[in-house]
């Protein structure tokens, strides 16, 4: 067997590169379009900021995934068609798992950002112990809370 002509490595690289490119671009666009809905809700009064945050997140997504796809590229040998298919599947598998991880991480970030913004409107979580009259010195006590819940 001639070792120069029986390697399918170039084909594996080619197919892998095309699929990695298409997948990453498709995912980044999905992230951008749907992330915009979340961020528009959070930064309702600052649409430019929402757009900027969204773009920066997508840039990070592109950088991470293209970088990772490049690192995954290198292989040593694919002498048969079967081994070439297996090699391609392994590479795409790792790529997909990493894309999925990044995607869920991004969703978590959107969730965090949104929850934080919502927290600004939450009322006090604990009942007051007393109520001072707004324009006088007199305090009138909430006797229930006063008697039971105040730590001594």
């Amino acid at each position, binding site marked *: 067997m001639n070792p120069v002509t029986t390697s399918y490595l170039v084909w594996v690289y080619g197919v892998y590169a095309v699929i990695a490119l298409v997948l990453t671009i498709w995912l980044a666009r999905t992230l951008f379009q749907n992330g915009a809905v979340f961020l528009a809700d959070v930064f309702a009064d600052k649409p430019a900021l929402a757009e900027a945050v969204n773009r920066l997140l997508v840039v990070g997504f592109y950088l991470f995934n293209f970088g990772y796809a490049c690192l995954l590229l290198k292989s040593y040998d694919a002498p048969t068609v079967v081994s070439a298919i297996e090699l391609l599947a392994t590479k795409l598998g790792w790529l997909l798992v990493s894309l999925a991880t990044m995607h869920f991480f991004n969703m978590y970030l959107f969730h965090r950002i949104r929850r934080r913004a919502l927290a600004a409107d939450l009322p006090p*979580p604990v009942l007051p112990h007393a109520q*001072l009259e707004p324009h006088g010195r007199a305090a009138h006590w909430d006797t229930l809370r006063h008697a039971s819940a105040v730590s001594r």
Partner: protein
Amino acid sequence: MTLTVLFDASCAFCVRTAQWLSAQRAHVTLELLPAQDEQAVARFGMLPWLGQQLVVVADDGRVWAGSAAFVMCLWALVDTRELAMQMASPGLAPLAERFFRFVSARRHRLAALVSHAPCAEAACARPLSSAYR
């Protein structure tokens, strides 16, 4: 909304914590007053907890004391509001209350951990006698 936090100025740990509080990003305006301060006594002297426990008073007259006041301080800050909401939940509230009582009862001993010098009144009270955002 403005929250007035009345802390024990005779305890260095409380003074340090109040300073930390005033430096945090907050959802509401925080006014930090030593409970022993003349202004504090004039405005809130009728509150039985003043000087004994942490007291938080809102500008609409609502008063929280003890562990509830502690939760209100956390609620006021941007970074700890979610923590405060969880601490007030039925599952964690008893634990938060015990934690606050534990710390509160030992506040003068804790002072030794955060301060090298005994808390001279002038040194402690001066930077906190005015309102902080």
